[in-house]
């Protein structure tokens, strides 16, 4: 269904292989119906029966958003140096290796250039399958570089979040990425280059508390978990059950924290419309 303009050989489309070996049917965790995998994929990984938005990996996301599924990756070659030599029940170094093996990525984000309805855009798409999409020095630097590229080339940027927050195994180094990215976003803001933040399931912690909430528009997919603290932490703190739908996209919309909740199928046209507003029709501005 999608194909990639590969930057290097190591970034083979392992996602496709995985699909083939996983069988032809999946059970929707929301409506519990059995869905033919091909139907699910053709429906942008949204349940055709109940509209449950399945999580998609970074490559699929890029392919869904960008014209003809084509894009060019950049800054994909950064890897963590494990600054704290962190070991809990397992060494961070081996967690990294495993995640790299499982996802075929060096870390939890992909930077790409492509076109969205004919308009050049930069997209940073987070990969939740890579240690919960957590943000350490590599994610921080990669996203910062995407923002800097956007400033330099006056190209609108989309950041698609899917993350549990800061990466604990890089300690305070992870925390400082929040400041770094947000400072870069201040420059983007001053350069008046459009930034649309797309929040997907889940977006929590330090990612929400920095770039995910700083778009000119913050838009989310339906039903995504979005918050600062995780639901379990809140339950432990307030010692009571959380209300139904708490911290879901619709809840945030209701509380004024999002500009819109946009179903995946309408995501691309919605973004295209917004970029028209911000940067003028394609071909009329610097773009």
């Amino acid at each position, binding site marked *: 269904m999608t194909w990639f303009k590969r930057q290097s050989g190591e970034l083979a489309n392992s996602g496709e292989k995985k699909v083939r070996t996983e069988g032809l049917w999946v059970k929707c965790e929301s409506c519990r119906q059995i869905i033919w995998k091909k139907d699910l994929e053709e429906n942008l990984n949204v349940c055709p029966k109940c509209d449950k938005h399945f999580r998609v990996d970074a490559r699929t996301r890029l392919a869904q958003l960008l014209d003809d599924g084509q894009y060019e990756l950049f800054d994909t*070659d*950064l*890897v*963590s*140096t*494990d*600054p*704290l030599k*962190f*070991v*809990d*029940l397992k060494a961070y170094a081996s967690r990294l290796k495993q995640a790299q093996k499982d996802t075929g990525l*060096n870390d939890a984000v992909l930077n790409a250039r492509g076109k969205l309805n004919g308009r050049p855009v930069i997209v940073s798409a987070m990969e939740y399958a890579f240690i919960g999409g957590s943000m*350490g*020095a*590599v994610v*921080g*630097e990669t996203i*910062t570089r995407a923002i800097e590229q956007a400033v330099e080339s006056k190209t609108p940027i989309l950041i698609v979040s899917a993350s549990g927050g*800061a990466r*604990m*195994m*890089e*300690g*305070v*180094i*992870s*925390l*400082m*990425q*929040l*400041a*770094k990215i*947000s*400072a870069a*976003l*201040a*420059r983007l*803001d*001053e350069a008046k280059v459009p930034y649309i933040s797309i929040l997907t399931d889940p977006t929590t912690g*330090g990612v*929400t*508390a*920095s*770039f*995910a*909430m*700083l778009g000119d528009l913050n838009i989310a997919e339906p039903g995504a978990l979005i*918050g*600062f*603290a995780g639901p379990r*932490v*809140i339950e432990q*703190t*307030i010692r009571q059950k*959380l209300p139904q739908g*708490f*911290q879901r996209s619709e809840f945030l919309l209701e*509380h004024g*924290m999002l500009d819109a909740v946009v179903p995946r199928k309408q995501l691309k046209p919605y973004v295209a419309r917004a970029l028209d507003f911000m940067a003028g029709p394609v071909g009329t501005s610097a773009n």
Partner: protein
Amino acid sequence: MIRGLMKSSPDMRLSGQSTPADKTDAPQSVAGAELLLSMVEAQWANRNGNTMELAPKAQQELEKIQQQLARLESLPKNPEQGSAQVAAQSDETQQQIQQLNERISVLRKELEEFRGAWYKTELARHPQRPYTLDYIERIFTGWSEIHGDRGFGDDPAIVCGMARFHDEDVMVIGHQKARDTKQKVYRNFGYAHPEGYRKALRAMKIAEKFGRPIFTFVDTPGAYPGLGAEERGQAEAIARNLREMPRLHVPILTVITGEGGSGGALAVAVADRVLMMENSVYSVISPEGCASIMWRDATKKELAAEALHITAPHLMELGCIDEIVEEPEGGAHTDHEKAAALLDSALQKHLATLKVLPIPSLLDSRYKKFRNMAQFFKTNV
């Protein structure tokens, strides 16, 4: 780090708990004390990666040895009470006591270093530690508090106000903890809500408008994880501060005075100078939180504290702060006046270096500071 503790020969190691300290409770000789000491060393030597659990035990053992040494020292050593032989023995005993004392002091130092991060966390949370208002009272004059975020409410967990710093008008912002129960609840234990961060930003913008430097004092376990906080956009409030602080056209100085709790701390800490008090900590998550997630066991907090690299020397080494401010002997809680005086002079020094910078270069260096901070990656080839 504990290499120095492993110098005991293997034959001195005791197997497991076969000779608990209480059974040799009253050694009548130096040999008895030596046995105890060897037990302590053996515990270190036999560690299986769980050294932090042993630290308190080792501490207890050390204390026991000291008590027993004290008893040894009080043994009769007056030659007139006995023969020359007794006197010689007594001399020997004295020598051994001295040697033991030296070894104990080495052990203690190592132990201190070893339990470092958790010990510092406890110091950083010490109930008698000076809080923001304690520092304000001692370092600033003309304090005039301002309240409210102009949107929802006033958050007592963060105080903001106009003040004078050595005759100069400045804005002071800080987390505020409290000591008695009623006040603790009022201050929400230093956990701020979104309106706290929004109030802080409002105060910062006032300072910017009138060209006044900003001082921020950080002492929070974190941003409050609660229903209302989420409803009112805790994440957005923090994020906005992170984006706005880098472009404020006035000097900003931050001091981590106690707990630098993650995003809730950083939200007022994007500054030209970030200082840490000697016994403060700064972390992406509390040691308890990290332990319960990564070890699935909150009691592994000492291990987590160590692994997270949260102490001032660690932050300095990682290039995340500019200076460590010395505290009075034993910690800031022992002497508020002295702690404030030490901080005062550090702040004066840094403000002087910032004030001479033209605003564009101030902003440029602030940007670069955070842009180039925490760059721990390599290029995969």
